[in-house]
């Protein structure tokens, strides 16, 4: 019997208000029981849900599990557990499911995830959640061969995502940096990396991706684990998880390198789960920013922001509003440091949000850079640090060197634009500066316009390219200037307006039909 159906069938509608008959009766009974049992009582709908959920997991009913995970759990949370714990896995839920350990791992995963989202976890709860992840991954990785289990893809992503989120959140707390916490090894960096590496290795995900890239059948190299959908997805999401963990730890080059064999295309596996899609681009983009590859970062952010804007109505705003704002902020920083032409839609969206700030940043407002960076950066951590420093400030301080030196050349451009050649002494007198200082600035301008830029291959690959529409060369005191004129991209504009034109034509034609139908 389907308890979800039961839940709906027994409801009574009175006007706009829906009453659930069974539930009212239950609630009345339970109110009395609650007085006795205090916090231990579980509403019947929740009890039914848990048992149904248990059945779905045991039967590998992926479609039904998807409903439990994406809908029912959230609905029941809104109804009963907005500000309180779900029923405790050991004390309350275990008896309902005959102590099935496997179900309890996955139920606990949701239990703690809900707790982290709605309440403040205690140190003990952080520890318990960590050990539940250990049990869960241990079950997946160290049973006799691969386990016979299927999960919805979005849940597989959710597990890896939440695991790292809780690791991140743990190291943001003060207790984490005192050695006398609940358990010294809780949320250890090595253990977390170990899980992620083990899953990606056991599933042969890199071999599989390489095979796909070479046009071969990934099943030939997948092995007993990687050939199962659950493992393949987990392995893949762990690679993206590694990208994120390395970024949080400030190792931006290693982060990019772990993305070996993953291409940023719409066809990539991560594109199937929207939050995975956005997270991947966000972290890759951040790594490009931190390694001074602004042109690559701009390409990354504008691609995913365009995608997000187009799919906004389908995805719903729940997860991504902040992430998208963060990426606009990073895009603003990058465009100031390395001016680039953006697609029209992104250009307009960026100007609406950060037009004034970008103008101020161009004029040298360093505070704004710091503000935007602080808002947009991930929550950096430094688990090895016993000095109680602030990793965000650390990374910002290093980043600001590049910002300051790049901006020192910003006012040159407006003069250089006007000439094909110019005397260095003359420019120095315009700018009211020392000739040798100016020479340094000019060399800086040239060097900063030169960036490592991806053209093909792995994400970390690139060649040094000149990335500005303005270029100079020095011949003693003579400055040669060249500027690309025009360079406006037309295709996007024409394609969009042609499509618009078609839809107007369609409207006119269909309008005709409707009129005829009316007459008939």
């Amino acid at each position, binding site marked *: 019997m389907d308890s979800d159906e039961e839940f709906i069938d027994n409801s009574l509608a009175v006007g706009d208000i829906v009453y659930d008959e069974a539930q009212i009766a239950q609630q009345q009974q339970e109110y009395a029981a609650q007085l006795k049992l205090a916090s231990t009582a579980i509403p019947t709908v929740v009890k039914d849900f848990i048992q149904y959920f248990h059945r779905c997991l045991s039967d590998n009913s992926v479609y039904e599990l998807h409903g439990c995970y994406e809908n029912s759990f959230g609905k029941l949370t809104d109804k009963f557990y907005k500000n309180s714990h779900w029923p405790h896995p050991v004390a309350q839920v275990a008896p309902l499911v005959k102590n099935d350990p496997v179900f309890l791992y996955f139920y606990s995963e949701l239990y703690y995830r809900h707790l982290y989202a709605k309440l403040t976890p205690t140190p003990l709860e952080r520890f318990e959640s960590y050990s539940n992840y250990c049990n869960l991954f241990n079950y997946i990785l160290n049973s006799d061969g691969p386990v016979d289990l299927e999960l919805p893809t979005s849940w597989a992503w959710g597990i890896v995502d939440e695991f790292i989120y809780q690791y991140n959140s743990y190291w943001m707390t003060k207790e984490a940096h005192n050695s006398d916490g609940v358990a010294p090894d809780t949320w250890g960096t*090595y253990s977390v*990396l170990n899980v992620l*590496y083990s899953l990606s290795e056991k599933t042969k995900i890199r071999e599989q991706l390489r095979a796909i890239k070479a046009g071969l059948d990934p099943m030939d190299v997948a092995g007993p684990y990687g050939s199962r959908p659950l493992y393949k997805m987990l392995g893949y999401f762990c690679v993206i998880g590694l990208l994120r963990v390395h970024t949080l*730890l400030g*190792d*931006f*080059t*290693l982060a*990019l390198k772990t993305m070996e064999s993953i291409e940023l295309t719409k066809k990539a596996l991560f594109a199937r789960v929207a939050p995975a899609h956005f997270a991947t681009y966000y972290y890759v983009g951040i790594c490009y920013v*931190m*390694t*001074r590859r602004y042109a690559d970062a701009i390409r990354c952010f504008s691609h995913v922001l365009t995608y997000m804007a187009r799919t906004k109505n389908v995805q719903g705003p729940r997860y991504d509003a902040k992430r998208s704002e963060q990426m606009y902020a990073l895009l603003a920083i990058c465009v100031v440091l390395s001016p680039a*032409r953006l697609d029209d839609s992104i250009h307009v969206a960026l100007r609406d949000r950060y037009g004034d700030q970008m103008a101020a940043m161009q004029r040298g407002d360093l505070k704004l850079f710091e503000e935007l960076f602080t808002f947009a950066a991930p929550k950096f951590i*430094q*688990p090895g*640090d016993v*000095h*109680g*420093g602030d*990793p965000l*400030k*650390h990374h910002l301080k*290093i*980043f600001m*060197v*590049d910002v*300051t*030196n790049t901006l020192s050349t910003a006012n040159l451009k407006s003069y250089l634009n006007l000439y094909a050649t110019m005397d260095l002494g003359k420019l120095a007198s315009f700018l009211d500066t020392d000739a040798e*200082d100016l020479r*340094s600035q000019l*060399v*800086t301008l040239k*060097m900063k316009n030169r960036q*490592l830029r991806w053209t093909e291959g792995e994400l*970390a*690959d*690139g*060649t040094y*390219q*000149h990335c*500005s*529409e*303005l*270029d*100079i*060369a*020095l*011949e*003693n*005191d003579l400055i*040669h*200037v*060249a500027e*690309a004129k025009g*360079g406006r*991209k*037309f*295709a996007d504009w024409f*394609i969009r307006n*042609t499509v618009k034109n078609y839809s107007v034509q369609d409207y006119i034609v269909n309008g005709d039909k409707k009129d005829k139908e009316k007459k008939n």
Partner: protein
Amino acid sequence: MDTLSKKPEQRPEEITAILSSLDRYNPEKISILQEYATTQCADQHSDIEANLALLKLLQFQQQPNPNKEDIICNILSMALANFLTSDFTTALHVLPSYVLDSPAADTLAESIQKLFHLYTLLDGCRFPEFWAVYERDDAHADITADVADFENLVRISITRAVDISSQAIHKDVFRSWLNLSDNKFADYVKELGWKVEGETVVVPPNKENEAKPATTTESIKIEQISRLLKRTNE
């Protein structure tokens, strides 16, 4: 050169094996990576990827390590000499944040902050000021002492910046950027194979030392217009 993703030729097999496995987190590998870093200092090549792995291992190392401070300074000094790449900043990013907090908490932080200041000068191409600051304090030469011929490595990078940005440069300017005496400067330029014409050093033309803006070419992928093409067939 792209130091982010290119593997240096000099990297031994053993190091490649460490870097491509979980061994990059194995504290037992510290000594091997440490030796490799020392070799780099002596041989004047730099392998930032291996050094980053070492810096991270050192952070998590439980046992006291008498060489830790020297190793970190050596790695940063090599990266500093390579200031045209992102080596120096990527190395700083993986160090604990206290090292840049002022006032410096220990001698390591003090040394790192000195190198950091030198870096900001080099990154802004303020070369004469770099040399002035560098020579004003003996501590700088001490910190970078283990990197063989450190000053010359910096000169090579400065020369590269000139090579990229200039077709010709005044002798006096170039000499002050390299911080060399007249005699040594003449030898240095000769070794580069660059010609001196009167008061000017002529930089051989290359792909980069001319003013050539990025050309924006527009390529349209078939997917972009697939909808339009489909429509024309309807």
